[in-house]
Structures are given as C-alpha cells and as structure tokens.
C-alpha cells in the first residue's frame, strides 16, 4: 500500500506542476551542488563521477517528492541505495587497508577501530562515571576508516539529531536500508500476526546493553549482538569466543535483516531489536516535527497501521490521533492513507491546517541532512563500484 504514490485531490495546495515542483526543488539542488562540489574530490575521478550521479539522484528524488506528494515511495530508493552502497564502500576500504573484514587486535590497540553511531548510547554511563570511552577507537582524527575519530561521529550524530530527531533512522542511518529493501520485495506479508509486545524489544536490548557495557566495561552490543557486523567489520576470530560472536552476528543479520523483513514487510531489526533506534526515539520528544492523524477524516481503515514499517501505529494511537514515539517519520502511513487523514505536523499548530507546509519544512531539513551525510556515503560506495568495474 505504501508503495503507491499519493493522488492529490483537486483543490489541494501542494505543488503539482513541473515548474512549481522544480522551483521547490531548487534549494535542494543548490545544497547538493554545495555539498558535492568538494575540492578534495577533484583528484579522484571515480568519486567525481559518483558525486555527480549521487547529486542528480538526490535532486531527482526530491523533485518527485514535490511533484507527486508522496514521500515514502521516493525516500525508499535513496534509503535502499544507502543501505547497499555503505557496505560496498566500507568493505572495499577495509579490504584494501588490511585485507580482511575481521578487525585485528593491533588495530584496536592503535585506536583504529571504525566508530559508527550505534554504540553511542552504550558509552554514556561509563563516560559519565569514569570519563572513559569503552571503545577501541580514537577520540580525535587519526582513528577510524575515515580518519575522523569518535568525536567526529558524535558531532555529526548530535547535529543531525538536533535537526531531524528520530528521523535519523529514515534519512541518515546507513544500516536500515538493507532491511527496508528486503521488506519491499514481497507484494504481501506472509507473516501478518505479530505480537505487539515485540515493540518493547529495542528498549529491552537498550537497557540490557547499557547495563552490560557499564558492568563489563566494553561495548557489549558491538561485541555480541550487532547484526551489521556481518556486512561491515567483525571481531577477528582468534578463539572460540570470537567464533561464537561472529556466529551470532550472522544469525541475527540473516534473521532480522533478511528473512523477517521478507516475511513481514516490516523493518524488523529496527522495530524489534535496535537499541540505538530506541535511544533515538527519545529525540522524537524534542523534534518540532511529527505525524498526526486528523480524526475528522479518519475512517479508520488502519491501512496506515499496516503500512508502518516499525509498527509505530496502534488502534489506540490512531484513536488518539498520533503515532508512537518510535515513529521515524518515513512517511509510509501518510502515503498509505486514502483519506489524507495522516498528515505531517508541526508541534503547536492545528492538525491538518497546513500539512504540506509542515511536510516541506521537514523535508528540507531531513533531505538536506540526507544529502550531506548519507549522500557522501552513497557517492563513496558508487565510486568504489566505478573504481573496481571501470
């Protein structure tokens, strides 16, 4: 349902003409040029070409969002591309630099373990109590595959979170695209009855991992449960424990990121497991943008509930006219609603008075971040493919 473009009714004030859509796309086009016209890229021809392609791709998708009024349908192309191309660029980098995806102990000691955002909530308590970061990386440039270090990743995460809140999970996360792609493969879900209590899974994993990280003084999630180790970088199996850890990564990746999304048409890892997603939900409370349900238009047919990839809508929340705090603002529910009852909203304003204005403001902020952060990752992955193939 969510894959169909929303059809605008006569009288809607949203832009539908090509000219107006182009006009609304202009700021993003200029932003893309600014972000991708980086002088450092000039020396790398593959990256130059990849940057041009990525820029056109991101501008075209935004244009289609403006033209059709559909958000999820076009955002998904970007997000799946990000999910596929991140591992391509990353794995190529690690293979070139050290010839294996397994991180050796000397790289950890040297502080060269790449740092992604997933361990951020795990580091807070040890850092608060002991001023110690329980991660084998570097704080300042010199560590990590990008040479950036933990401070840079923390900085970019905080800045983007300030802008999009939980929207991070739909516009910046470079892992979620794989399962979103998997979830979009089947036309209908084979597994439809999912116990709603699974929604508490991410909170449970977050609580256990935060406490374990403090108790064991190690990034417990990275060492034991991260499914994406299977497509990025795993612990070099020096002993039986290492073998068990890697086995867990592969099983979780196969189950939560490949098999279950295919069966349920949901982002099961995000919805039922990801502790970072649960942590990020807190920032839905600080974000000025959210999604509301106009009760005067709602039937309710619960198509929005079916379309939501993270089960962030329940009968009760629909009755209250709002989404749950796990909503990551992907727009699937908005696209799915035949009555236009699910709308983008700015906190403090009347529901459904100017939903397109709220959508535009949110998309400018979120797509701007997507171009800046995720766009560079897409370009890097694309450059890797170009470099290898051409």
């Amino acid at each position, binding site marked *: 349902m969510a894959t169909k473009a929303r059809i605008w009714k006569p009288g809607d004030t949203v832009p539908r003409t090509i000219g107006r859509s182009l006009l609304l796309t202009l700021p993003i086009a200029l932003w893309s040029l600014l972000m991708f016209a980086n002088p450092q890229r000039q020396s790398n021809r593959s990256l130059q070409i990849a940057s041009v392609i990525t820029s056109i791709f991101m501008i075209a998708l935004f244009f289609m969002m403006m033209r059709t009024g559909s958000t999820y349908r076009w955002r998904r192309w970007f997000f799946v591309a990000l999910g596929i191309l991140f591992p391509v660029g990353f794995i190529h980098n690690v293979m070139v630099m050290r010839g294996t995806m397994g991180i050796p102990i000397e790289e950890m000691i040297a502080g060269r373990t790449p740092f992604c955002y997933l361990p951020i909530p795990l580091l807070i308590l040890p850092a608060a109590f002991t001023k110690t970061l329980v991660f084998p990386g570097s704080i*300042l440039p010199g560590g990590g595959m990008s040479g950036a270090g933990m401070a840079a990743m923390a*900085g*970019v995460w905080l800045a983007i979170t300030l802008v999009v809140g939980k929207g991070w999970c739909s516009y910046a996360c470079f892992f979620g695209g794989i399962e979103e792609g998997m979830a979009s493969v089947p036309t209908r879900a084979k597994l439809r009855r999912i116990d709603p209590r699974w929604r508490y899974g991410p909170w449970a994993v977050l609580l256990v991992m935060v406490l374990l990280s403090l108790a064991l003084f190690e990034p417990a999630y990275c060492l034991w449960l991260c499914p994406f180790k299977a497509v990025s970088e795993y612990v070099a199996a020096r002993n039986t424990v290492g073998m068990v850890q890697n086995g867990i990564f592969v099983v979780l990746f196969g189950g939560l990121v490949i098999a279950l999304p295919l069966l349920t048409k949901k982002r099961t890892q995000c919805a039922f497991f990801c502790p970072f997603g649960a942590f990020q939900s807190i920032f839905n409370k600080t974000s000025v943008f959210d999604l509301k349900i106009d009760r005067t238009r709602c039937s309710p047919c619960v198509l929005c509930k079916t379309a939501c990839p993270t089960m962030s809508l329940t009968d009760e929340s629909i009755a209250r006219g709002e989404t749950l705090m796990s909503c990551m603002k992907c727009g699937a529910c908005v696209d799915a609603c035949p009555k236009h009852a699910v709308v983008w909203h700015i906190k403090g304003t009347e529901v459904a008075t100017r939903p397109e204005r709220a959508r535009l403001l949110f998309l400018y902020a979120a797509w701007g971040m997507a171009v800046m952060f995720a766009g560079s990752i897409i370009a890097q992955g694309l450059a890797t493919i170009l470099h290898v193939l051409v």
Partner: protein
Amino acid sequence: MKLRAKLGYTAAGMTVFAALLVPFLLYGLFTKGFAALGLHVDEMYSGGPKVRTVQTAGYSIDIHRPVFPRMLQREGPFVQLDWKPVSALPAHVSDVVDVDGDGQPDIRVSFDVPRDAKTPLRVNVEALNPRYEAMRNVGKEKFSRLIVRVDDAILVRVPLAHP
C-alpha cells in the same frame, strides 16, 4: 494565529536554519565540544600512559603505567612495554627490564623480530619479580597478554600476578 502555532512555525524555521548550519558550524562545534569533554579511551585498549623510557643500544623501551580492570571487565591487570623503532631492533630481542623503576630487574622479555611485518610474533617472559606473570610462546591471546606490532613499535603486555 495562536501563540503556540507561531512558536511552532518559528521552531520549524529554526530547525531548517540549523540544518543549513550543520556542515559549516554545528558539526565542527559539536565535534570540538565532544573532544573538549576530557574523555579518554579505556586503558585496556590504549595501554595506559607512558611513564618511563629505557634507552638501550639503538632502540628504546617505553614502559606504561600498569592497567587494572574496572568493574567486571573480562581482562586481567597488565603492564605494557613498547620496543621501538622496529627497524632498529635486532633479529632477536632478549632484554631484562626494570618495570617499576626500583633498580631491580623485574622481567626478562625475549622475542624474535621477523623482517616481514605480517609474520606473527611470539614472546617469552620470565618473571624475575613475583608481581609479574611469566608467559611462554604467547601471541595475541587477550588484551592483557600479548605481543603485537603497532606501526613502528612492538608492544608486549605482561600480565600482573593477582594480589
């Protein structure tokens, strides 16, 4: 328009403006802010701060402060010693080291230095002081008991005997 709505639109506008500032100001500001928090990487990984350097013929041995596990950390206590530069090391190193600086020898460390940087290293440590644990033919078993090559140094972590 109600005040709440005006505040909402103002906040939304400021969010878009903040998005514009992310690559030029906020990212750098937050990165510097994080770096200025005075946090440090756990010594179990970093090896602890260097406290002394012993000069020998052509190369030096950096001795780090002993590292002790925190909370329920799975590793034991250890002390890290760095032989560097690798290029100045002989084919076989066998050094008696005064780790704690009391003028008495504490351990004898022996290892081969292969010219190929990818060849795995093995180390033997003879404990001359009961405070240190002996190691026989150890590679890189654990963070607290290993020999590895990192950049231009060979690092040996000698476990401390449990009190």
